[in-house]
């Protein structure tokens, strides 16, 4: 039963990735990434039941608080300050992005059968959700035209490492787990502060305003 639930939550994570790819508004993207944060908490809780670890319950609560509530809250605050079009406006269109997302997810299942790390995961669905999330996170970063979508892409990419870490984290000392989560939070918070500064200096969140050093 728990294994089934684990598989369903893993599948929901993959679906949330596809939702992020198809979202045209920054506000929807933030809601999507918050939902993914809550799914990660649920995954931790299910894993805690799987291995009877209080350690993972604590991690689940932290994950929901940080990834599901705090980070989306700061991102929403940032978006409210943006006067220009609040469209995600990616380099690649939404339909093609969705198609690429589906290909990445299928590839994740395929590679898991072939690669030597299949036993590192609790189940195939769990492993595939980690790989698919990593691929889609990177895709979101690369195809972004604005810094907020880049932050969300980074957050999704980082979520993949969380899913991956969960299966191997059982014996990790708690302070290390806490450190990893706090580092993520601090990292994203610093990105949000930097994005605010970009907005103040350039009056825009477009990455085009950040191409002067490349010239």
């Amino acid at each position, binding site marked *: 039963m728990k294994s089934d639930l684990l598989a369903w939550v893993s599948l929901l994570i993959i679906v949330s990735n596809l939702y992020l790819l198809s979202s045209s508004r920054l506000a929807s993207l933030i809601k999507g990434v918050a939902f993914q944060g809550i799914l990660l908490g649920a995954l931790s809780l299910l894993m805690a039941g799987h291995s009877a670890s209080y350690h993972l319950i604590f991690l689940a609560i932290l994950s929901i608080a940080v990834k599901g509530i705090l980070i989306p809250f700061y991102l929403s605050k940032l978006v409210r300050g943006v006067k220009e079009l609040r469209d995600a406006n990616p380099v690649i269109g939404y339909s093609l992005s969705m198609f690429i997302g589906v290909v990445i997810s299928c590839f994740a299942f395929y590679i898991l059968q072939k690669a030597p790390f299949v036993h590192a995961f609790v189940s195939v669905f769990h492993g595939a959700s980690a790989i698919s999330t990593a691929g889609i996170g990177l895709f979101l970063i690369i195809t972004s035209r604005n810094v907020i979508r880049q932050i969300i892409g980074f957050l999704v990419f980082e979520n993949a490492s969380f899913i991956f870490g969960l299966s191997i984290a059982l014996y990790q000392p708690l302070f290390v787990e806490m450190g990893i989560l706090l580092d993520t939070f601090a990292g994203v918070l610093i990105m949000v502060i930097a994005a605010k500064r970009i907005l103040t200096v350039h009056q825009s969140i477009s990455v085009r305003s950040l191409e002067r*050093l490349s010239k």
Partner: protein
Amino acid sequence: MNLIEITVVLIYAFFAGGTASCFRSKNPAKLLLVPVISSSAVFLGGIAFLIETRPENTVLLFGGTLIIDSLSLLHILLVNTIFLITSIYTTGYFREKIKCGALKASYAKRFSILWQTFQAVLLLVLLSNNIGLMWISLEATTIVSAFLIISDAELSIEATWKYLLICSVGIVFAFFGTMLTVAAARGMQSSEGVYLFSYLSANADEIDPRLMLLAFILVVVGFGTKAGLSPMHTWLPDAHSQAPTPVSAVFSGVMLNCALFCIMRYLPITEAALDFDGQARSIVLLCGFMSLIFAAVFIPIQSDVKRMLAYCSVEHIGIIAIGLGLGGLGIFAALLHTVGHSLSKVLAFFSAGSIADHFGTREMKDIQCASHKVPLWGNTFFLSCLVLMGVAPSAVFMSEFLLAKELFFTGKYIILAFFLLGTLAVFFSMLRYTMLISFGKGPKEQGVESRGRRVDTVIVITCLLLLLFLGLWIPAPLSNFLKDAVSIIEKGATL
């Protein structure tokens, strides 16, 4: 708690005290003195480590969470030295800005707090025996140092953004590598030992080789991004050129080394897991080789003096990686190169920053005859760049010579040819720029415009003499110290 653990606690107490004192103060001059005091105390702490541990010993601290061996000790001493001299330089660098009111108390406060925290987390990277803690510390260096890059300059925000995004993504790759390492070691008896480098090194034959190789590739990509290895180095020229000079100096002088240090910890474990077939070394060698070639191609087309020095860092990190990839004498050369590069690059950044401030531009075509107008920094720039180019006799020349010798005697003639070609290309391009900046045609009748501080002169002369000395003779204690560190990179940190 033993004596070494007490020293570690004292070092971090100094950092905490120094940082806390900055929150209260509002005077910029006093705020900039705090890092000098704390880095002096930490420098003495590093010396205490050397005396207490004796270089040939490996000591586990706090239940195995931290480790001190000759490899970490070498890097700790280097970090402490670079931070100490840079903190002293910083007081002079910002003095003029304080005088004319360009430096606000808020900036000095931010700088002093982040500066000390940055050194504290860098030291934690070097002390970590737990692979998770090492990852956390290195990620923390990105978070802490990002706001050291931002100044009033508009372009600095762009450089900060690239640094944050690229290094953070790279560090997540390193996290995948870290977790895969644990997965590869799952068959081991101790479930907690799989997180410790010392345990993994001692039981490397029980590690799944295929998984470990994959983990190592991710570790090289991840930590290599932070180390500035090509092709993941793209953040480096922007961050180094836009950051204030003291920050560029420590980025290039020690932060890149610390990231490479993480790869040095994984290298012996991977090699042992793969039965010493050389695959892991080849990966590092390839990255090093690419870095050297990238730098050789990009240095000639630079116009900004700090960008040129940034690409020069890519070249030297590449040379260190080539040494690590070769093994044996190559690793010895790599460690010697680490010391030589750090000292000379810090001097090069000090002088480039001071010259650029004096001339009001970083464009090399607009800076001429610096040795006449600002003799201390003009001549230091010339001499430190000569060292960086590998001119004899200097520590950098010695390590490059040892590396070429190892390539020749191991029969890697093609790599040797490209190595010589790359270093020669860098040599000629840098020589042209350096001659122009230090001795180029300019109005000499204006006379000396700035002589520099005495303390800066002492720092410059000491570092240059040390670089010259290491190019002529490596004393037996230092040679043995380096050989111990080499054996740790070859066999791992075992007790």
